[in-house]
């Protein structure tokens, strides 16, 4: 059964926190359910419907789903290893697995996409499925963007990346590497692209490093002279991944608190540094990197020191770096993105010795190649409307190019969204929409004992192997048994347990076996403006009780109530979003 009722839509949004948190809208419970049944190929395809690079994201995603996971809520234990499972599906699908694509008829429309990073590739894939002729122009020699040039191989092996990118563009996308867009020699001007195509999508990413003003210690307020030991982190990694040989000194200081800074530090250890320190302005608690990343970095010997902002460098007589000067910080107010202000303390400067400094404090977009003039927003990025179109007709933009540096999964989500908007503009109306599919489920799909399975830890390469010559992938991946165990941990939040109030006999047998405070005696349930169910008004005495109600927020879908009910008045349905064609 299909529904567009706001109560059903509201239920799915509220009750499947992982899917709601995923910028790509991945149907997490569905793919985890498939893995639990050993159907890895199916799980892979479910992922691919929302995110065209599951094997890649299964390794490097920032995992907003896990932060939202119900199994990680207070009192429920640890979140499910959703990302590790995504990778497991990719790793364990059998060798003959065939990718499924459902192609629309050719439209005859031609689209150019600037940039073959995650946003551009996701958009290119979706647009080619929708029947358009897509050309992708990529400045670098290889496609992948941040995936190839920003993320080190020990986190994302290049063979996996290549296969998935290739599969995304196999439907006849014309990929032209080594082709820039702009006014420089060999570059195609944007205006010409606009003439030659029905629409152009800018997905050029955000990889220009933010500069950092550093003075030379003891030499007055001006900027320090250029020094071969001081580099920006992202260009350092890009050069390394282009194949250039890079080296670092014995003591490496990395400044910055994002994934790039972490990656620079871990690369530095592999390039032979003896002492690698990441200096952050606030403290470990407030930086956006996952706890697992920080832990592995520390295992590899990286240290993190907080509450300092770099203000200068110390150079020796030959102009080589001997140290970085920092000023001590206090912590200030909270910022809206969950981070904190760092307030420098006057007169608290100190120096830390080092031989190499890598600066990874963020990136900005480069959009000087755009003509005609487009509207920019307050951060000097291109402003786009709901459909992703800029102020220039037919010119669209998406991904980090619009938002500034974010995460890969956000870029993919925005790329898909832009493709939908672009397609709707080209074809005159949206061709797909999202509805709720509701299917009855006969039996609980899980056992209570599954809830006690400990979170399967990702096996990692032993320390002494990591820094050796081969520099293998650090995370090894869950094996088939671990994958099943971890998949069983998922509560399958797309299951909706509901008591039929008319048939309930108020025996309370369900409440007695409930493992949480999830079944309540209520006077009533509030109805919100959009028609969906709001909060429960609990009853204190029997004569106030209007119904026995399963609080779906607390419900962990263990099935105990279903099994205990003597009159079988509890129904289970699976409620999930599906995309259907608009007529």
């Amino acid at each position, binding site marked *: 059964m299909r529904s567009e009722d706001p109560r059903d839509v509201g239920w799915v949004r509220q009750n499947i926190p992982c899917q709601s948190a995923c910028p790509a809208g991945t149907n997490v419970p569905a793919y985890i359910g498939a893995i639990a049944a050993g159907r890895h190929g199916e799980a892979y395809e479910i992922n691919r419907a929302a995110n065209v690079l599951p094997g890649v994201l299964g390794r490097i995603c920032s995992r907003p789903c896990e932060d939202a996971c119900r199994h990680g809520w*207070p009192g429920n234990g640890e979140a499910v290893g959703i990302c590790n499972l995504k990778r497991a599906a990719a790793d364990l699908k059998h060798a003959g697995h065939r990718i499924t694509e459902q192609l629309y008829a050719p439209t005859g429309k031609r689209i150019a996409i600037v940039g073959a990073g995650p946003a551009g590739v996701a958009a290119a894939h979706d647009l080619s499925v929708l029947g358009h002729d897509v050309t992708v122009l990529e400045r670098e020699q290889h496609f992948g963007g941040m995936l190839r040039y920003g993320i080190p191989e020990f986190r994302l092996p290049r063979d996996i990346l290549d296969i998935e990118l290739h599969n995304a563009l196999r439907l006849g996308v014309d990929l032209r590497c080594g082709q820039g867009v702009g006014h420089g020699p060999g570059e195609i001007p944007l205006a010409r692209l606009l003439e030659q195509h029905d629409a152009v999508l800018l997905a050029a990413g955000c990889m220009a490093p933010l500069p950092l003003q550093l003075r030379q210690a003891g030499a007055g307020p001006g900027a320090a002279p250029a020094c071969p030991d001081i580099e920006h982190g992202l260009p350092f990694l890009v050069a390394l991944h282009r194949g250039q040989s890079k080296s670092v000194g014995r003591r490496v200081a990395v400044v910055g608190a994002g994934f790039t800074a972490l990656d620079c530090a871990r690369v530095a250890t592999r390039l032979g540094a003896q002492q690698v320190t990441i200096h952050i302005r606030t*403290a*470990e608690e407030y930086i956006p990197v996952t706890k697992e990343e920080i*832990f592995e970095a520390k*295992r590899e010997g990286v240290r993190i020191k907080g509450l300092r902002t770099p203000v200068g460098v110390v150079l020796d007589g030959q102009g080589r770096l001997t140290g970085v000067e920092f000023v001590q910080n206090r*912590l200030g107010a909270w910022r809206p993105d969950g981070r*904190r202000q760092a307030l420098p*303390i006057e007169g608290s400067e100190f120096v830390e010795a080092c031989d190499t400094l890598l600066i990874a404090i963020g990136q900005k977009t480069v959009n000087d190649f755009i003509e005609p003039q487009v509207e920019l927003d307050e951060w000097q990025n291109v402003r786009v409307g709901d459909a992703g179109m800029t102020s220039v007709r037919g010119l669209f933009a998406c991904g980090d190019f619009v938002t500034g540096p974010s995460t890969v999964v956000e870029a993919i989500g925005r790329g898909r969204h832009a493709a939908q908007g672009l397609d709707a503009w080209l074809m005159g109306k949206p061709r797909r929409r999202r509805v709720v599919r509701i299917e009855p489920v006969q039996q609980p799909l899980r056992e209570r004992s599954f809830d006690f399975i400990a979170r399967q830890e990702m096996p990692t390469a032993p320390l*002494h192997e990591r820094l050796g010559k081969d520099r293998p992938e650090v995370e090894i991946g869950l094996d088939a048994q671990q994958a099943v165990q971890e998949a069983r941990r998922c509560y399958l939040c797309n299951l909706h347990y509901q008591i039929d109030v008319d048939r309930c006999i108020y025996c309370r047998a369900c409440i007695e076996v409930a493992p949480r405070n999830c079944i309540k005696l209520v006077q009533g349930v509030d109805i919100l403006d959009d028609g969906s169910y709001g909060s429960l008004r609990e009853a204190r005495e029997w004569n106030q009780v209007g119904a026995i109600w399963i609080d779906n927020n607390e419900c962990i879908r263990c099935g105990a109530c279903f099994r205990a009910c003597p009159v079988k008045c509890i129904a289970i349905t699976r409620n999930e979003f599906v995309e259907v064609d608009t007529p």
Partner: protein
Amino acid sequence: MTRPRHHVIIGTGVAGNQATRTLRQREPDARISLLTLSALPFYNRYDLPRVFRGVHDWREFLVDPPSYYEDQRIELRRCTQVVNVDAQRKTLALEHNETLSYDTLLVASGGRAYLPEELSEYRDLLDGFTSFEQAMTMQRKLPAGGAVAILGGDMIGLDLARTLVDTGHRVMLVAGKHTFWPHVETPEQRQALLGVLQSMGIEIIDAEAQGGIASIQAGARGFAARRLVFGKGRECTADVVLPSFGLAPAVEFMIGSGVAIERGLLVSPSLRTTDDSILAAGDVCQIWSEADNRYRFFFGWKNVRAMGELAARNLTGDDEAFEPAQDETLHIHDGMTIHSPFWEYA
């Protein structure tokens, strides 16, 4: 305000206990709740080596008898874990699903033994010595004359080593950058100090020279309980392996409260956090030091006790700054014994 204030103190260590005492003296009518993870009332951790001298009844370690808490109307809540602090509502969420309100909160949860990340996979093979239960467990495990391998060798571990040597056990110290923590010594001082340790009967293994610890294993049946394997191939065995790498502040439950945290809770010289109602004292806090121009820890029993006392006074109307109560230098006396202010408990 007619209702008496409710002071809540997290942690029954030296700081928490001293603060409780002082608070009760200064506010006879206030309500005081003292929360701890421990099942036992306050005892001094430094006292625990006495288990090797035949003291096995925990009642002999208590600093105050149980009746003290009843007489002083201190609500001692043991086996109580705080999982979150809502500084807006001034409530604490306890792990067992109870909510507690406070007027003032003193965080004195101290530090727990730090285990370097690269050794985390061997956690289950290591033995701690931070509680009575752990101390007795180790005492029961160690055979007479048995061998203890101390990894790191902070001053707490070395204090235990003194007793172990004195009671006829074999002690091996795997020395590294945490040896003598929290003291900071020069390389020459370090050599001299290691020499003194050796003359005390402690075997020294230089971790770095041996290529670091490659792995720790459970011994096969019939052999010693633990085997340490070093990077360059050397191996040694012990009955018990004790990690001794200094302390890491116990602050995870404070993260949701919004107060500033770096490694510990960041406090002003008067021990105030960035929330007016929340103070911190002891190993858990980093105090702003004008002299050093940074936030820093002040370790040591005397310092911690002074902080507890000060926090209580500042909670009840004063506004004084913390003055260190002990110096931090390590001395060698007569070339034969080590004097550390961290070994002075009076």
